[in-house]
Every structure is written in C-alpha cells, then in structure tokens.
C-alpha cells in the first residue's frame, strides 16, 4: 500500500484551491459582464411596487458602497476574494439582519446528509448491479432481470421526484410530500425524531438513487467485462478459488478504481441535480433556500450558497483524491497521474 506522499497531498490541495478560485471568479465575473447591476435592478423593482422612490440614485449609490459594488473592478475583486477567504459572505439582501453564513449553516447539514447518503447508496447499489450484469456465473435469469432496475436512468432526479410525490405522497399517502421532519416532533436524539427524519428523507434519497444508479451500473459492467478478460482472472480460476472470492477480490477490486475516479468527476453534477430535488420536496437544504433567494432576488444569498456548494463539492473530491492512493496499491504518485 503506497503511502500518502507530501507532494501528492500538496498537489491535490492546489487543485482544491484552484477549483474554488475558478468557481469564485466565475460567480464574480459573469454577472458583471451583463448590463445593469443587482442593486439597480432591485431598486427598479421597488419603484415598480412603490410607484416612486425619492432619491433613488442616492439609494443605489449607498447600497452599492454597502455591498462592495463600487470602485474599480480589481478592487471589488480583491475585496470579494478576501471576504471569501474569511468565509464572510455578507448579509442577506432580502432578510437584512440575517447573515448568509447563518442561513447556510442551518441548511447545509440537511443537504450534506441527504446527498451523501443518496450518493453512497446509489454508488454501491449501481456498482453491484453492474458487476453482476457482467458476471457470467450469475444465472442468466437474474442477469436478464437486472437491467430492469436501470429503467429510470438518465431521467433528471427532480422529475422522478415529482412522480414519487404524486403517487407515493398524494395518491397513496404512504410518505409525506414536504419537509424534513414531522410537525410536533421534538428535534433531538430521540427515536421519534430519527424515524420522522428517515420517513421524510426516504423519497428525496430514493429519487436520486433510482435515477443515478444506472450510470454506475453501466460503467461497472464495462470495467467488469474488461477485467474478466485479464490473465489473472484465468489464473484465479485455475487455482480453484471460490467464485465468490474471485468476484469480490479479483473482479470488483480491480474494476472499482475507475469508478471512484468517475465518482469524483460526477459529484458536481450530482450536487447540482440535488438542488432541484430539495426544491421539489420542500426539503430545507441549500437548494430550497437557494430557490427562496432566487424568488426574492437575494443576490448575496444566491452567491453565498453557490460558493458553498462549489467548496463542498471540491472538498468531497479532495477527500476522494486523498483516499485514492490507499485503495489503489499500484499507483505511486511520484509523477502526477490522475
């Protein structure tokens, strides 16, 4: 087992910083390329509602200064990056005294829990299904049934969520349609609360798992077919190892590595898709608050949530990258090879 070298660690840390920097720069730059700015737009909306606002030009100037939108762009950019480094995401425009970090702090645990459980479940289930689909010792009947589980692959998470809500929540009323735990349940480490959280979380998790596991299954199937043709598989057979041992320790063990790389590459897409799942299920995570912020044109909250999402995905990828040398004994990271 190759150890984690300092050089590898530093390189991955550099990638982590680079990703966050690119993301932050994109969020900063692109809105500024467009005509108009958020403060003017907001004041215009106020004017529409109120009819007329005195000194609207002064108001715009004052707010611009308040939210760091005045001054030349490089000064704005520097201040912006500095505040990101300090994790100071400013105040909510729509609910003024509320800090963006507080809103994120309240919603992040729900998103983190729901999305990570869903991703791990779908990754494990998908890979197992894919491996079995390619394994010749599995009875043909089972091998032919397995692809049925891939029916909903490639459908957006949230659309499957709509179907689940309309049937399981509205029509048959087996599961609640909204929220993260039931009304009147005391949050804390008691059985009622935990059961309620599980009951509410099952549908969102299910809508991600069912629609994404086929992706892993197909990748795994392809890898397994390739692995099956390798000489060491023939040797393992010739040695008389038990089929189950060959399957887990020769087949899956060797097919797993590209799948872990694929997981790291797809986390961004999964996180993006889960935003909409939370919205559909009224699940009070980042996606739900992001939608609230969009409705109320709360630009600081939108920016803050998206920034945190980028940081979150980049961190998850960093963790996977750091675990990678431990699961892949072959690769030594003397020369950067991802």
């Amino acid at each position: 087992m190759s150890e984690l070298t300092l050089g590898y660690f530093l390189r991955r840390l550099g990638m982590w910083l680079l990703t966050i920097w690119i993301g932050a720069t994109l969020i900063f730059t692109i809105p500024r390329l467009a005509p108009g700015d958020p403060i003017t737009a907001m004041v215009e909306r106020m004017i529409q509602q109120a009819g007329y606002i005195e000194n609207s030009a002064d108001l715009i100037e004052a707010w611009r200064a308040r939210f760091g939108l005045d001054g030349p762009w490089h000064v704005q950019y520097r201040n912006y990056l500095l505040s990101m480094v300090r994790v100071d995401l400013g105040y909510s425009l729509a609910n003024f005294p509320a800090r963006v970090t507080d809103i994120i702090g309240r919603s992040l645990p729900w998103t983190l829990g729901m999305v990570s459980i869903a991703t791990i479940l779908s990754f494990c289930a998908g890979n197992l299904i894919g491996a079995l689909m390619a394994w010749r010792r599995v009875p043909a009947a089972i091998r032919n049934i397995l692809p049925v589980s891939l029916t909903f692959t490639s459908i957006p998470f949230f659309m499957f969520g709509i179907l689940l809500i309309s049937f399981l929540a509205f029509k048959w009323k087996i599961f609640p349609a909204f929220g993260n735990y039931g009304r009147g349940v005391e949050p804390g480490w008691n059985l009622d609360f935990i059961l309620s959280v599980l009951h509410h979380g099952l549908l969102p998790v299910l809508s991600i798992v069912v629609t994404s596991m086929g992706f892993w299954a197909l990748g795994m199937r392809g890898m397994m077919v390739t692995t099956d043709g390798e000489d060491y598989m023939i040797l393992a057979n010739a040695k008389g190892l038990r089929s189950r041992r060959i399957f887990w320790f020769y087949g899956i063990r060797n097919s797993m590595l590209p799948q872990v790389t694929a997981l790291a590459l797809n986390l961004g897409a999964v996180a993006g898709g889960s935003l909409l799942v939370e919205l559909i299920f009224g699940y009070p995570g980042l996606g739900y608050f992001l939608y609230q912020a969009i409705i109320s044109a709360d630009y600081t909250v939108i920016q803050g949530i998206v920034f945190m999402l980028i940081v979150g995905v980049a961190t998850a990828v960093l963790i996977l990258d750091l675990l990678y040398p431990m699961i892949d004994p072959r690769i030594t990271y003397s020369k950067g090879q991802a």
Partner: protein
Amino acid sequence: MSVATAAPTGNQASARRGLNTWDSPWLNFKFLLGLSMIAIILLMAGAGPLGLYDTTRARVASAPLNLPPAWTNIDNPFFGEPDPEYPLGTDSDGRDLTAVLLVGAPRSLHIGLIAAGAGMLIGVVLGFSAGFIGGWWDAFVRTISDSIITIPALAVLIVISAFVKNLDVVILALLLAAFAWPGPTRLLRAQVLSMRERGYVQMARLSGANTFSILFREMLPNMLPYLAASLTGNVSGAILAATGLEALGLGPTRIPTMGMTIYHAMYVSALFRGMWWWWGMPIVALVIVFTGLFLMTVGLDEIANPRLRGIREQ
C-alpha cells in the same frame, strides 16, 4: 482477450447470423432505437410550419382553461370537458399543451445540441493539442479541465441567470458549453495518448504525414464512436442543466420549453390540484429525450468497445 472467452453465447449468435453487410456494428439496436426516439422529437418541430397543428395556441390565453386530455373522462367541476380539439388538454393559463409540446420539446433538444456541439469543438481542439504537444500545455489543460469538471454547472448558471434576466436561447446554450468541454477534452487527450504509439500512426508518421493530417485523417476517424458517445452524453447533460434552470423559472421566458412548463405547473401547484396532464406532458417528453440519448450513448459505447457487445442479453 477474444470475444469467445468473454461470452460464448454472443459468439454463437454472431456465428449463426454469419458475417454479411448487415453485420455492421453501427446497426446496434439500442443506438438505432435511441436515434429514432430523438428523430421523432426533432421532427415534431415541423408540425407548426407545415400547418399540421396550430402551434400558436402555445401562447397564454389561446385555449379554454383546465381541459383534461381528450382521451380521459374526468368528471370534476373544476376542470372543463375533454375536447378532441385539444388532445393533451390545456393548462390554467389557457395554453394548449399539445402546441406547447410541439414547440417546446424540439427546442430543448436544440439547446442541448448547440451546447454539446460547441463544447465538443473546444474539447477536440484542447484534447488533441494537449495529447499531441504534451509538456506544460498538457499539464495546463489537464489541470483546468479537472477543476472545471467538479464545479456544479447548474449552480453557476443559477447565479448567472439570477443576475441576467431574459437569457437568450443561444446565450444559454453557449454558457452551457462553457461547462461541457472538460469531458470531451479529457477523453480525447487520453485517446490521443494511447493512439500515438499505435502501429498505424507510426506508419503514417514514417510515410511523412504531417501532424495535422495524422490527427484528423488517421486518429479522428478511429475515435468517432467515442466522440459520438461523449457528444450524446453531453447533449443529455446540457438539456438536464437547461431544464433544471427552466424548472426554477430562470430559463429563457419567451419560448415555451419543457422545463418552463414544469415550472408553471409547480408554481400553481398542479400536483396538488390533480392536473397530472400538465406536469405529466413535459416529463414524458423529456423522459423520451433523455432515454433516447441514453440509449444512443450506450449503443455507441458498444460500437466503440466490442467487448461490451459480447455479454448482450440473449
């Protein structure tokens, strides 16, 4: 190594059929099925201009409100009588959902095709140059594409479209392309690296072909199935992001799209009011689009990698 060890059943089947002109790997059932599903959606765009259906009824207030689809017999005082004039029913704003489908579904595909096409173009240029030039350029391209690929495209697009009102369809597609290039870039770079030392490339180099012609006349044709699989995957990804954006009410607002229809339906809680045809129509249309693209990707993977064909279900 050979197909025979991987799957005796598949081999027997091909032996039975024998090798003839119909044995081309491009005649892959999944690929063709997916292709025809996509073709049907694209052809729907012709219904309006050809006068087969009055697609102007996709506008607000051009049809009676809340009509269920024509084939149902829903007896609900809140909804109108099903009318064969409006086969898929209408929504609460007086849009004819059939017209919305005919106009919107091909549009969603167009966005995906433009975005994925532009992304693929960038990917071909960067991937080829990185794989062939190598050195610092390769390191640079690899680093940037590896970091962009982990940024959630949908999230960044949400920020952009929250600031920029009334996104144009083409602008949206190009913004999507900004996140669609790292995939093809990585794929092509890896392919170029593995093909560089193959016999036929060496041969071309020995016979004095220049780099450009090696890249485009020797290597590119060999990568076609990979490229196509990556392209269909990217079209699907771009439509996914565009639909997500529209479902949040942030997409282009002038033309009806499938995502926007879902947004309208969610906005007035059609789910709660039992107007399943309203949210059901865009979902069915998009499921056909996504499943078609998915089948094409899987089929193209099998075309590119003969081993996958071996364990085909018999």
